[in-house]
């Protein structure tokens, strides 16, 4: 009994301090109360006021920029300290210190990848007096003020008490690491490894056909050209991968596959668009944005407005960082989507036994650098990790052939400086100039201003290699190194187009005529959301803010609108059972909307999964492909769409063991299987097979406590619809929705979740219903918030 009270046992905390009624986990009840307060913060220069709306949105008004960032740090930490600590630990490879051996793989991976090293370099590059440096220091002071306060009043988050540790002081490097976390999530991609493994199994010929450089299907690029002339390198055909390269790729693939979800980019899914006054019902520019990320509780976002002499901005910030990432100021609004271009390159290093610990590069033997880390592990001995680095980057595999990694996220990038300039910009010129310094991750930044201008620019690095096939591991001997990036003036961008509309949804930004390498098709989204958004925006008539909201929750599946007519044609001569006939009739009368009450949606989705399986599984089985088909399904689906529409006799339909057949044969077989499967799981009446019975969404607790999840709940949409909800149980999607109408000067937004990470707080999930229904909350100004009902006021004093 005494042991359990005083000491932790395995995953259990020491019961005494954990359940202490005055300082233990029960203090989350007091923490959940938010009332008017007057408090003193170390480091403040002048008084600061914080207004908290009834829904938790924070409005910070400071008399100096320094105080603005200090107060932002305090407010973030007041509501999200555990989340912030988890995020910095993840990037710094320190999760094992509190969660034990279970987190060791993640820590090793992160320390190899190098977010911490990059953050340290970025911090070192900021000279004394630099505004970003000052902002980071002020922000850290604010976080540390909250940590000190929470410790003194015993109101550290319950998770700290239950896991049994205290947060260390916040530093500017922690903020830069969190910025790195996001870069990793949005731009670290293992595609070349997957393609290498597939190449080894299927052969260079099929791999080249199925994983082409340019997208095989019809897409809606936002920048149609013409493009400035530049030297064009010929597209090379796929080379064959060696055994050693395949071994190395397999080791890296397995290592990456063992990581928790969300650490690297899996598929793109974000939307943004802008409408010019010529197409706007209000007469002003419209802007809409909904970045799609893992939907967690608490959310990655924290909503706030910031007012100081230098800043008047509102929107969402990432806890742990001082600025607004998506939002608006007095003159401009912006949002972003992932640009999806290739930013990860793998290099096979040339080694020789006569030159131990060396690799051959640029005509000479170079010695690997190494960095040592100690990883403290809760309940076990500290692990010593040595990270080996070539000129390309960290070595991630030494099986077969030593492979190192060049990743754009490892280049120091003062994104926070850029962000502060964006926050202060008042014109496209200032906005665009600010983005010159944005390097990684590359994003499609959409823009609309109060003078009726709209723009879209894919800012960031687009790495170019001197020669070779960057979609496979490249030779590390120097000739295939990354030599630069597309010049800023030549990256995809459009300003005030004649059409009056701009849109991005992770699709190819440009046409095949674009003269620079962006990545291969499987880095990008297949483009169905972009096609649907373009279809709606380019329709006749004027568009309103309500139309923007409606498009954000659009459930029309563009792929279905292309394929279902072909399927119905293929089934027209097929003998069908009564159940199959009923299912076919559902499809024939369908509007292609993936609504929860639609039975046709279930038939379509199940058919499509079955069609992919029917086409590719025999290849995967007969050729023993070592990559899970699901890991490359978006690309395979794009191929299948293209063949179905334009090449129904493609050899892919005649896999080994299935004989000679075409697309229609595969569709018929897939349809029979899909209906049989649905009948088995949902009953014999196709009208009852509603989409909501097999498709749900779940918001997952960040600490992986399933009882604190929201859902699963029946949900509309799928992976192809603007309302993104991929998979049978969708755990990612629109993480923030914003609509700006400059004509009526209205700003609206919402994210799923709530401002507080405390599950006992009324602000833990209070925004979910609004978000789920497709509604938005008004983004109030600080003055409006102060007079709103239920607002709470804090006075912060030096």
């Amino acid at each position, binding site marked *: *009994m005494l042991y359990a*009270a005083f000491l932790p046992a395995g995953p259990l905390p020491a019961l005494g301090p954990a*359940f202490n009624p005055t300082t233990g986990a029960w203090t989350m009840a007091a923490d959940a109360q938010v009332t008017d307060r007057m408090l003193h913060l170390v480091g403040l220069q002048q008084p600061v006021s914080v207004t908290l709306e009834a829904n938790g949105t924070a409005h910070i008004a400071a008399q100096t920029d320094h105080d603005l960032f200090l107060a932002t740090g305090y407010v973030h930490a007041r509501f999200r300290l555990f989340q912030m600590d988890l995020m910095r630990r993840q990037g710094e490879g320190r999760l094992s210190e509190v969660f034990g051996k279970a987190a060791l793989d993640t820590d090793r991976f992160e320390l190899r990848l190098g977010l911490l090293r990059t953050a340290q370099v970025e911090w070192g590059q900021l000279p004394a007096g630099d505004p970003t440096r000052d902002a980071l220091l002020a922000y850290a002071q604010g976080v540390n003020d909250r940590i000190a306060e929470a410790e003194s009043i015993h109101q550290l988050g319950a998770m700290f008490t239950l896991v049994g540790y205290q947060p260390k002081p916040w530093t500017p490097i922690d903020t830069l690491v969190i910025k790195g976390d996001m870069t990793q999530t949005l731009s670290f991609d293992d595609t070349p490894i997957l393609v290498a493994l597939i190449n080894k199994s299927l052969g260079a010929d099929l791999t080249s056909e199925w994983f082409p450089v340019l997208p095989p299907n019809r897409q809606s690029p936002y920048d149609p050209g013409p493009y400035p002339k530049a030297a064009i390198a010929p597209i090379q055909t796929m080379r064959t991968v060696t055994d050693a390269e395949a071994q190395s790729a397999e080791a890296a693939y397995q290592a990456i596959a063992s990581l928790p979800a969300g650490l690297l980019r899996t598929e793109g899914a974000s939307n943004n668009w802008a409408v010019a006054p010529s197409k706007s019902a209000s007469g002003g520019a419209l802007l809409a944005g909904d970045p799609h990320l893992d939907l967690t509780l608490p959310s990655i976002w924290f909503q706030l407005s910031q007012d100081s002499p230098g800043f008047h901005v509102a929107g969402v910030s990432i806890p742990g960082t001082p600025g607004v990432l998506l939002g608006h100021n007095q003159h401009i609004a912006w949002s972003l989507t992932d640009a999806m271009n290739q930013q990860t390159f793998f290099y096979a290093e040339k080694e020789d036994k006569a030159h131990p610990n060396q690799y051959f590069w640029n005509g000479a033997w170079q010695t690997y650098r190494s960095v040592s880390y100690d990883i403290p592990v809760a309940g076990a001995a500290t692990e010593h990790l040595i990270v080996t680095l070539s000129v390309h980057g960290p070595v991630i595999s030494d099986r077969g052939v030593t492979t190192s990694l060049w990743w754009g996220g490892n280049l120091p990038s003062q994104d926070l400086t850029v962000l502060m300039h964006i926050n202060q910009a008042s014109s496209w010129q200032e906005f665009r100039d600010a983005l010159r310094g944005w390097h990684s991750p590359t994003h499609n930044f959409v823009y609309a201003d109060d003078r009726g201008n709209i723009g879209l620019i894919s800012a960031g690095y687009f790495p170019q290699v001197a020669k070779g096939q960057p979609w496979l591991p490249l030779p590390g001997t120097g000739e295939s190194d990354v030599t630069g990036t597309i010049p800023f003036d030549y990256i995809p961008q459009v300003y005030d187009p004649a059409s009056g509309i701009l849109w991005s949804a992770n699709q190819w930004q440009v046409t095949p005529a674009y003269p620079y390498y962006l990545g291969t098709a499987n880095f990008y989204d297949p483009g169905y959301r972009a096609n649907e958004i373009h279809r709606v925006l380019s329709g006749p008539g004027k568009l309103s803010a309500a139309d923007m909201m409606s498009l954000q929750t659009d459930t029309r599946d563009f792929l279905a609108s292309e394929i279902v007519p072909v399927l119905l044609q293929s089934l027209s001569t097929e003998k069908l059972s009564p159940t199959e006939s009923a299912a076919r009739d559902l499809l024939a009368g369908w509007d292609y909307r993936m609504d929860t009450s639609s039975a046709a949606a279930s038939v379509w989705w199940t058919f499509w999964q079955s069609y992919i399986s029917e086409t590719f599984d025999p290849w995967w089985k007969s050729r023993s492909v070592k990559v899970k088909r699901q890991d490359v399904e978006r690309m395979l689906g794009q191929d299948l769409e293209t063949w179905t529409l334009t090449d129904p006799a493609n050899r892919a339909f005649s896999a080994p063991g299935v004989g000679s057949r075409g697309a229609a044969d595969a569709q018929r077989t897939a349809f029979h299987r899909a209906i049989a499967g649905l009948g088995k799981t949902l009953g014999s009446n196709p009208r009852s097979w509603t989409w909501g019975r097999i498709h749900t969404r779940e918001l997952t607790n960040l600490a992986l406590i399933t*009882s*604190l999840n929201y859902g699963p709940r029946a949900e509309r949409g799928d992976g192809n619809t603007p309302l993104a909800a991929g998979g049978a149980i969708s755990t990612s999607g629109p993480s923030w929705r914003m609509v700006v109408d400059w004509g009526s000067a209205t700003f609206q937004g919402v994210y799923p979740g709530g401002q507080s990470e405390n599950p006992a707080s009324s602000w833990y999930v209070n925004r979910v219903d609004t978000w789920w229904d497709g509604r938005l909350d008004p983004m109030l100004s600080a003055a409006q918030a102060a007079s709103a009902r239920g607002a709470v006021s804090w006075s912060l004093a030096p």
Partner: protein
Amino acid sequence: MRLYVSFLIAGLVALAVVLLGLWWAPFVIGLVFGAQERRGRVAVPAGAAIGLVSWLVPLAVAHERYGLGPTAQSLAAIMGFGHEGAIPVVLTLLVGTLLGLTGAWLASAGRALIPAPR
């Protein structure tokens, strides 16, 4: 009468110290109480009662001020008991009770090992 006074004082001291954040107070107070009271059958239940009261009162005060329902449910969820908020409440009071009981029992057992003066 002396027993009741001792019990009352011990309970109040334990409560005051717990309110200061020192959760282990019932154990120490139970230890002292058990060392003073020669009858184990009295000391042990009294120690348990001291532990229970000194942990119950702060919890009741917190409930009165903030309402512990959502917190109890959240703790149950974190502990893997769904949203059965009663479980963390019972567990918390059990820890307090057992701290007091263990202290008193340990002292009583120690007393039993010391030979009585002839």
